């Protein structure tokens, strides 16, 4: 069965929902790979992000190597230490809850009253961002040297960020339950998906829902995403890169901003400096790492405005303690006035599935009208 324009399959409008149904039938009758078989068209191929996780190397679930002292304490533990229930004293909200909440947004001093466990050990995921091998650099699991990922040192022993932790979990859940987070990349100028020495990667925010495959456990390639150029201009970035043996590597871009919010919050993003992709790409998926120096101030602001103390508590994530650790471990982009580093090296594991990008100038396809 020939499908003339699978691009119109996965919008979330009423028309698009009809199209999705039509294409589901098409997929069942023509084989699962038919949709993405010709995903590269006119040198263009698009992807939509389906999974994202700050890269945390785990030697074991308990983290015996990287977290020999255990995991860090969170808001509940710290509150109990400061204001013990069995003290016999009635604490005021002013001196306890409101003091803690106020300082989460207005960090008063750099010294953390609580011990903070940084991730230990020689290994981490990530990229060599500065081209050097330094004393604080990690070794990648495959043996690559000079891996820059000081964010891992800060978050590696916080339960929320480890596999199955609440940040790790909700970062992905909120990706598909909150359309604000729809992040797209488009490769253009692609002559060959395996080897091409000059391609362009452009990031966008999308406007449509993600669609799962028939199992409900994974996301299917071949959907459509409308590109948001009305509200999402600030999320558009352009990177140059090349594909070698199926691995796309881009040059760093000075500033990359991508959306990340919890449902119900009308804002939220990360800003990464000197960031670059390293993704294994094919006509169905793109998987790999985004490395760069994440801006500390916006990182903490995003955390505090999108992930309340309540939520932080379930992952033993103290925003105040983490904020201090990030400022202490920041290793890039020094402030020209103070000399203090403003960004911290980091890596994010990413997964995308292929999608057809519909730019606003492209006419809508109304397949529903073909129904009898």
């Amino acid at each position: 069965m020939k499908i003339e324009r699978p691009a119109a399959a996965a919008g979330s409008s009423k028309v698009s929902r009809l199209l999705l149904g039509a294409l589901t039938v098409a997929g069942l009758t023509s084989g699962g790979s038919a949709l993405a078989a010709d995903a590269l068209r006119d040198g263009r191929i698009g992807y939509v992000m389906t999974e994202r996780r700050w890269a945390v190397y785990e030697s074991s679930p308990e983290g015996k190597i990287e977290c020999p002292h255990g995991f860090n304490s969170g808001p509940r533990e710290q509150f109990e230490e400061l204001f013990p229930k069995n003290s016999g004293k009635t604490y005021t909200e002013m001196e306890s809850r409101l003091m803690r909440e106020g300082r989460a947004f207005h960090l008063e001093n750099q010294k953390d009253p609580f011990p903070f466990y940084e991730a230990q050990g020689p290994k981490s995921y990530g990229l060599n961002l500065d081209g050097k091998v330094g004393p604080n650099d990690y070794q990648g699991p495959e043996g690559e040297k000079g891996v820059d990922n000081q964010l891992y040192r800060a978050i590696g022993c916080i339960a929320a960020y480890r596999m199955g932790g609440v940040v790790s979990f909700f970062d992905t859940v909120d990706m598909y339950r909150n359309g604000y987070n729809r992040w797209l990349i488009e490769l253009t100028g692609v002559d060959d998906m395996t080897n091409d020495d000059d391609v362009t990667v452009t990031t966008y925010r999308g406007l449509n829902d993600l669609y799962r495959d028939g199992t409900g456990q994974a996301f299917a390639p071949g959907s459509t995403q409308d590109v948001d150029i009305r509200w999402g201009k600030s999320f558009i970035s352009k990177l140059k890169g090349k594909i070698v043996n199926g691995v796309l590597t881009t040059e760093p871009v000075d500033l990359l901003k991508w959306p990340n919010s919890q449902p119900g919050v009308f804002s939220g993003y990360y800003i990464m400096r000197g960031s670059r992709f390293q993704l294994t790409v094919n006509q169905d998926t793109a998987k790999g790492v985004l490395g760069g120096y994440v801006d500390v101030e916006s990182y903490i602001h995003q955390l505090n405005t999108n992930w309340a103390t309540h939520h932080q508590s379930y992952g033993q994530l103290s925003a105040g303690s983490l904020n201090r650790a990030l400022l202490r471990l920041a290793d890039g982009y020094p402030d020209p006035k103070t000399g203090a580093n403003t960004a911290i090296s980091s890596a994010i594991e990413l997964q995308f599935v292929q999608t057809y990008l519909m730019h606003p100038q492209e006419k809508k396809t109304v397949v529903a009208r073909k129904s009898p």
Partner: protein
Amino acid sequence: MRSIGVSFASVTRDRDLSPSGLSRRVWIRSLTRSPLNLFHFLSTDLPVALASTAVFFSGAQLATAAEPAAAAPDPFNQYWQSADAPDHELYVKEVLPPGFQVIATELEGPVFADAQGRTLYKWPLQTLRNGATGDRQGRPSTCTNEVLRVSAGLMSPYPAGLALPDLDHRPSCVDLWPPVIAPKDAKAVGKWTVIQRGDGAEQWAYDGYPLYASSLDRKPGDVHGGTKMSAGGDGGVVRVPVGPAIGIPPGFKVVPSTSGRLITTDRGDSVYTWDGDDKPNVSNCYKDCLIDWAPVLAPEIVKERDDWTIVKRAPGVNQWAFRGKPLYTYNYDRGSRNFWGADVPGWHNAYTQRALRPPEGFTVQDAEGGGQVLADSRGHTIYYYNCRDDSFAQLACDNPDSTQAYRMAICGNGDPKLCRETFPYVIAPAGAKSTSRLWSVIAIDPNTGHRAAPGQESLQVWAYRDRPVYNYVGDDQPGVTNADGYGEFTGGRNGFKAFVLRDIFQGNAFRQ
């Protein structure tokens, strides 16, 4: 193809109509050939239509709560109407106990009020993170004159038993929410009943919920104590203004929003009107127009009444019209309560009444969050502050008459100066006035955040619903909303939220 509709044929606008005709089914020709539409009509629309028809037309009489001066609504403004616009929401008239009345309000539509014009509120039980509070339906009020002194621990992660702020002048629940006391000879009528309070007094209740006035309401028509808009699960157990049933036909509902009373289908699809329909009750949307727009179908036999009339598209094919304008849904809307269709020139969301315009100088900005926000004259986002305390009484702390301890902690770590720098008040120009009572200029003591005493040096600031509005120092350009979520529970509990008019990703949830 044919589908089932509900007849309005036997419905008249008289009070003594027979309900026997209400459920009579008639066959009408469906305008659409889509199997999907047929499914929805049969499986979803019909039962709802039957149920709501019974409510809407069983002896009901529609009324308006005001007799406004006739004036043309401003066609250039998507979200607001002018103060003299004629648009007011109709409601279903019901028998009220002596002394009660229905008052038209600017944002909430018709609400019940007592003889003094005070808006009536209920406080339905709601579960928070660690427990529930509020009034149970049909049970006595839990709002008492006891001054609660410690927190209830309803909100994670903080424990119960923390001493609440400003204990030396902390009010009781009754101080802020005086119960609506019934005379000893009061008699129940309709949904109006009497429930005995713990102190033995009789309290009026509506639909089983005890009724209160709000200390924040000063004039008839004020609804400062609460709103019908959703507060969100973590916003606290809120008080909700109570009013009569809305006068709309089956198949529609009205969604309370920041821009007014938005009409949708009962499935939540926004309905639109078109400037191209230039004659009352006549549709010019045929052929290519129908690619993008779907007429909202009415049953074949239906009684027109008041704002709701019928467009004859073809023999037996009726389309709803509201105030003479044919209604449509937009085929490219994404989910419910949408404004996508209004992005198409000449098309407008339908409201029973829009909110009144903000004062001169305020603007609307496209926002990175995906939608539009209210902004100041520079285009910088306007924020409002939410707060409810963690007592069982869930007293509001979001206004200048309440404790400022919570707000000061969030915006300035307890420091008023840092607070003003982080969230500066939106200063009103000298002599500024508002034509809408939703907006006002109030004098604020900059150091305490409370109202300034007469003669005291103060800031003249804009207030929405009698609460100051703010900018955020971290918003360095128009269209950013960096402080949305700033505070406890992402700004819903004790913190700041952007004044969002449209939110494409959250289905325009219109958070309080």
